């Protein structure tokens, strides 16, 4: 009973906040939840079933005992791929042929049964026991934001780390984005092979199709980054000093414009670089080289930011992503926090705590004492040891 009340309270606070922005959204804001997860042959788990609590779920245990695998399994349902593995097959337990995962979720669309089979050849996905042909039909049923210490790469790493952040974020709120991304990458592979075959007329027809998919990617990314930047500004207390304003610029190969203008501009760029591309044997320009510039007080955060500032930026981006998902879908995503609380100082911990109290959160930690005492929402505690997960208290 108490647990229910906690959620309702937050729910009402949220409505008051939202009313200022959009009255029609009043009845729509909900909290996405995962009620149960079943995994079979996933990393160190041969079989396990987890019934999550509605609010805060704490998974504790020493390192390499399988805490993170549970978060990874959940992230697979929202991102369609593992945020920590290069290839999905890495999640399959050693010596096994396939992994099976199932999540029962509830949200605006009611109760949803999501299932996935991962084999060395690929994935099979099901929604309410119906097999879906593509991942884009599977995504958009379970929203989650995964946050781990590795996310520091969004600031410190290369353009591919930042593209991954953008692509994973966009794929779950806009499944057509994933479709365009897959289409673009497929065309890009074809084009690169064609460059090696030296077939200029055939290049023209691939460029045409590729510019259409590419322009849609650029439009979606531009809007996504602009909104993310605005939303992160609403949490400017995450970045300590006021003058340290966070700014995120989208870096791409074309000017802003209408869809057709971007298409044309892409085709023109590929025409101009064709000689160079033919020499190199691959496509040197296009949205597959996109990046974002993260600036703190007008200086590049990857070069000039301190480790603490970089962590704050990542937190700021993740919090903005939570807001963005809520804005686009009407639902608070599930928060998956992989051992990040201990890395944050008390002020930033407190900020995260405020968001945790509004969502269903599943967090991992080496010791349950590391969870701040200010976090007063109902909690369910699990211990992980040797690939076995057991409930320690609620």
């Amino acid at each position, binding site marked *: 009973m108490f647990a229910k009340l906690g959620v309702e309270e937050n729910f009402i606070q949220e409505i008051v906040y939202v009313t200022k922005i959009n009255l029609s959204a009043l009845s729509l804001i909900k909290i996405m939840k995962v009620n149960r997860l079943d995994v079979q042959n996933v990393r160190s788990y041969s079989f396990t079933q987890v019934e999550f609590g509605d609010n805060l779920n704490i998974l504790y245990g020493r390192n390499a005992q399988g805490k993170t695998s549970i978060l990874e399994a959940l992230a697979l349902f929202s991102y369609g791929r593992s945020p920590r593995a290069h290839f999905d097959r890495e999640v399959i337990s050693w010596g096994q042929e396939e992994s099976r995962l199932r999540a029962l979720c509830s949200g605006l669309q009611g109760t949803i049964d999501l299932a996935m089979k991962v084999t060395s050849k690929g994935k099979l996905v099901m929604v309410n026991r119906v097999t879906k042909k593509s991942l884009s039909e599977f995504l958009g049923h379970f929203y989650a934001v995964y946050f781990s210490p590795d996310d520091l790469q969004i600031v410190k790493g290369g353009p591919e780390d930042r593209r991954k952040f953008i692509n994973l974020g966009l794929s779950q709120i806009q499944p057509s984005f994933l479709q365009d991304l897959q289409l673009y990458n*497929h065309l890009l*592979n*074809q084009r690169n092979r064609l460059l*090696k075959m030296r*077939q200029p*007329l*055939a290049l023209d*027809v691939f460029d*045409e*199709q590729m510019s259409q998919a590419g322009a849609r990617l650029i439009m979606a990314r531009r809007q996504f980054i602009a909104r993310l930047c605005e939303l992160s500004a609403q949490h400017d207390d995450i970045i300590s000093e006021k003058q340290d304003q966070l700014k995120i610029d989208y870096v791409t190969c074309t000017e802003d414009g209408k869809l057709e203008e971007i298409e044309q501009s892409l085709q023109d760029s590929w025409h101009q670089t064709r000689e160079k591309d033919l020499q190199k044997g691959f496509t040197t320009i296009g949205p597959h080289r996109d990046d974002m510039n993260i600036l703190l007080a007008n200086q590049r955060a990857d070069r000039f930011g301190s480790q603490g500032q970089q962590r704050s930026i990542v937190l700021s981006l993740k919090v903005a992503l939570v807001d963005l998902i809520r804005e686009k879908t009407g639902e608070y995503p599930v928060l998956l926090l992989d051992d990040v609380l201990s890395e944050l100082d008390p002020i930033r911990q407190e900020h995260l705590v405020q968001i945790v109290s509004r969502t269903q959160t599943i967090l991992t930690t080496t010791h349950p004492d590391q969870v701040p005492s200010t976090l007063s929402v109902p909690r369910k505690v699990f211990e992980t040891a040797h690939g076995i997960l057991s409930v320690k208290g609620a």
Partner: protein
Amino acid sequence: MAEFPAPIAKLIEEFGRLPGIGPKSAQRLAFHVVSMSDDDVKKLIEALLHSKRDLVFCESCCCVTDHSPCFVCGDAERDHTMICVVQDTRDMLALERMKSYRGLYHVLGGAISPMDGIGPDELRLTELLHRLADDAIKEMILATNSTVEGEATASYIARLAHHFENLAVTRIAHGLPIGGDLEYADEATLARALEFRRPI
């Protein structure tokens, strides 16, 4: 795990090379063959050999046929001013089954897919251009699949066909599911696709 006896292992390997046959299906097929009567095995061998020995490419449309010219090209009753370009013989037969198209075909033998090593030179395009050079042909319908490769192939051919001033070039309407193969489209969908073709 115990090894398969060599003759079965060989059979499994050969079945496994066929399209759409995974290791498990290959094993099932191999063990099925072992359980067949000698007579049935002979029939299967005969069928395999005949299919290879007795089939040729049509000298005109390049379809796979048992005699050249094929039953379409050799039919004087058909409309010889119209040519429908498809990826393979199965697509041509799918269109034939709906019995409403009365023109000729041209079978490309695939679609441009550089990743599979198929560039324009690997398709029957020279043969197509030779046929188009013949003034009798007034309309060309591009009925390649609605996949990325099928679309690229259609645009490519449309560009090549610009040189023929009196030729109308159309693309079948895609009431076909995106990424769909002609072969799997039902007859009603196919008929609609052909009826609502558009200039390209």
